[in-house]
């Protein structure tokens, strides 16, 4: 899905397929992981 969106020129993706809403603490961990990996980690929903 992300590939298709990118191909048609979409800038950003949210929700489906990336990550569910996270508590502030979880979001901070996500931020750190994103910084270390250079890309946003994909998390299973729920």
């Amino acid at each position, binding site marked *: *899905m*992300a590939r*298709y*969106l*990118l191909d*048609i*020129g*979409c*800038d*950003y*993706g*949210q*929700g*489906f397929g*990336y*990550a*569910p*809403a*996270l*508590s*502030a603490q979880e*979001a*901070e961990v*996500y*931020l*750190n992981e*994103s*910084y270390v990996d*250079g*890309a*946003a980690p994909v998390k299973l929903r*729920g």
Partner: protein
Amino acid sequence: MALGSKDRFVWDTMVTLEALGAAQVVLWTWDPHNDRLRLTGAARALGLSPLAPECASAAALALCLPQDRALMEGVLTVQEPGQEIMARVRMRGGETCIWRGEWLEEGGVRASGVIVPETRFAASEKDALTGLLDRRSFISQAREQLQINRNYTLVVADLDRLRRLNEALGHERADLVLSALGSRLAAAFPSDTLLARVGEDEFAALTNSDIERPAEVMRAALEQPLRIAGFDIVPTLSIGAVAAEGGVDAPEAAELLRRAELAVESAKTAGRGGAAAYGRALESDGLSRLAMESDLRGAIGRGEIVPYYQPVVRLRTGAIAGFEALARWRHPRRGLIPPDQFLPLCDEMGLLVELGAHMMRASALQLAEWRRAHRAAGEISVSVNLSVGEIDRPHLVRDLSELLAETGLPRGALKLEITESDIMRDPDQAAIILRKLREVGAGLALDDFGTGFSSLSYLTRLPFDTLKIDRYFVRTMGSNEGSAKIVRSVVNLGRDLSLEVVA
């Protein structure tokens, strides 16, 4: 049975005191002639400190919850020496405690005993008929289990037509049916599953994610023919189930059981052998709704409604671009409540504007903290939904301006998301406010785009920098060509108008 002088135990003072201290119990003596109740031990922990070290009977009765007052009177009523005392009593501000003791044979008319908190000392009581946990023990143990961070399902099965069985077979034979069902239930689930008889004809199982389709497991186990007193009996069940996440935000066990039982009631309306999962619609019951309303009032002030942050990813690089802040209610008993279960109520109660202001402030403060503390967060943004009608809130622009000044957030870091329907109520007025918001430094996103904008010309007149495609189209674009076309069209539209697009 009373102890005579020959039967007395030898107590080591030090061991006794240390053990009693560790056990959090209270020792008591009651002298009815002098109207003196004496307490020693962990009175404060058990909510008995107003009565310690000694008090009159009236004080003890006054501190009891009204429904437990008669039980307390029973404790204090003089009986024959050797008579045992046993009562479950709850005091105001304390937990339910078990008072155990005995009327003494020596030293005048006196009683003496121990008071223990029920949850610590009586958490493994079994149902005599089935050998399963009883309702109270089930709730107590479920509460502990739900602390572990796993996915759970609570299933409740109600045996249809128990009354008819009782009438046809007599209670003793009907009890055999219940007993057999208990055994079958225990055999159907792993030994570490919490199983209980939670009502006269109700069984419950709290299962973790290792067990697939627990409701079907329960039905398969219990809906097997039985032969009792020469009759073939085929039990049928109405089953209700509710899912829950364990961990710090786990719902209260009693509340979870209530939800499963609500689902059972719903299943019964479908006739014998029905099944239902708990859902929001079942909460239409007036009392439940009333309780929710009561809890919601003041929830914002108590800090129970908090932003959760959904990541927005830059597709070209895979890097995180920001978050959308979404409201969640951390209910002290019901656990984490999703927005679709409380936002409509907020709307009806006129709390949306207060909620919107709270979310904006909390999210801005969090973003500022992240940007200060994390290199990775240097460029990220957080978007917040403007709730319905919030665009008309007096001082919205001023409040936002002050918030941005207070947090030091740069222009565009805090984005406001507005739905097209909110704009279309008064497009000209909305345009004025949106421009002011933009001037003071807010980013602006048009939310749920594609669901009914009546005039695309507004897009060129309103100062948006971002289009957010309605979720439905993104979710279904893989299977629905129409959705895929809309997504493609919106992306092209955004590019032509120099707007960023979030799918």
